């Protein structure tokens, strides 16, 4: 970490490096494009016709095919160290965190860099990318699949689209109501004060990292 070599005096802590911020916003842009283009495709009869429908389809298709790229590119390669480390953080849960989810946030928790809700959000989004990519491809290249699978893929694509919509709206609401956290996805760092209150375990680990330097 390159913030400072004197852990007791640093005031801001790097939460997301450039690669992560880039991946986040590329991913967000693709999700936005997908949801915007999905609306007239799905609710076509609402809008009457208006649309250069084929163009909207193509934007939806290509945004969908590009969707896994930001995450994959940010993970591989020497630039992906922070990203890979965060994926491990998101994957591996302590007993405390599991209990925190089971008690719906009422049990004690010394939060990691991400709280369990944020972790679930990340896991859900990554799984959704896979599910949407696979079912979307089945709808695009439907000829290779039996009709009942196509119907099933439509069903799953629709259901996940609804789920993604609500999760993304929730994500944006949480972001807008948590200023410090929001700032870190633009500028990268959070205040030490924030980290002490919301990510104490992470902060301690960061300090230990620095102490070892």
């Amino acid at each position, binding site marked *: 970490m390159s913030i400072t070599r004197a852990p007791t005096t640093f005031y801001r802590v790097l939460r997301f490096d450039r690669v992560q911020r880039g991946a986040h916003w590329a991913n967000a842009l693709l999700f936005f494009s997908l949801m915007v283009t999905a609306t007239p495709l799905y609710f076509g009869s609402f809008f009457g*016709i208006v649309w250069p429908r084929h163009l909207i389809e193509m934007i939806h298709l290509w945004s969908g095919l590009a969707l896994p790229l930001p995450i994959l590119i940010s993970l591989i390669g020497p630039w992906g160290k922070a990203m890979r480390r965060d994926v491990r953080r998101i994957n591996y849960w302590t007993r405390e965190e599991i209990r925190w989810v089971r008690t719906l946030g009422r049990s004690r928790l010394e939060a990691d860099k991400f709280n369990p809700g944020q*972790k679930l959000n990340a896991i859900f989004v990554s799984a959704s990318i896979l599910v949407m990519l696979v079912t979307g491809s*089945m709808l695009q290249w*439907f000829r290779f699949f039996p*009709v009942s699978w196509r*119907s*099933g893929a*439509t*069903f799953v694509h629709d259901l996940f689209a609804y789920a993604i919509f609500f999760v993304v709206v929730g994500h944006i609401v949480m972001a807008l109501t948590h200023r410090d956290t929001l700032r870190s996805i633009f500028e990268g760092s959070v205040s030490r004060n924030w980290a002490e209150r919301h990510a104490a375990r992470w902060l301690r680990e960061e300090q230990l990292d620095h102490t070892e330097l």
Partner: protein
Amino acid sequence: MSVESHRGTPKEPHNGVNVGRRVFLGLAALGALGVAFGNSVQNFLGDAVGSGLGGLLPGGDRFRIYSITGAYPKITRDKYRLNVSGLVDHPTTFTLADLQSMPKTSFAKAFQCVTGWRVPDVPWEGVKLSDLLDRVGVKSGAVAVSFDSYDNADTESLTLEQAHLPDVIVAYSMLGAPVTTEHGGPVRLYVAPMFGYKSLKWLSGIRVVDAIEPGFWERNGYPVNGWLDGTTGPNNPDPGLT
């Protein structure tokens, strides 16, 4: 299961339970199950609770509106004309009122798109294509029927035998109301035993011809015989046509 205390070394701070993998795989499995069984689940729910539930299920009962040209031809009900020509004894132009004065056929059948979505139990109302053909008189030597659309882009075709199936209709009512513009109104074709692309919208003309003329979608790679079961179908054993 060994859950390390969070006071473990910072190098290995997260060797707890891999919840991420479980949730990820769980969701992926849910998606796979949905692909495999979503169709049956939807049909079961539709049958068990009636078609009303389909409307509540997201994606369960929803048309996706396709249009080749990206526009809907707007034809008023007064101005609508259906021109029947070709190898017929009496080439005729029908108004909507003409069609409505003919014997009415109504049934509820699914609309199944070749890409997968399906709307069950759609109420349809119209004139049997066979009645219409009988009215104008089909000449000998006729083999197939070609259809044209007011969008000036879509075309379709059926063999004469297919055109005489009892659930192939020229529909003026759908979903309990006059066929709306986006659904192909005022008058569209509905070919129940075949995929939706055969049910041409904004029907403008019917031509009785001496050879199959593959329609728009068929020239773009879809089977000429769009039987729902994907076979060459009961009434057209010629695999060359599929």
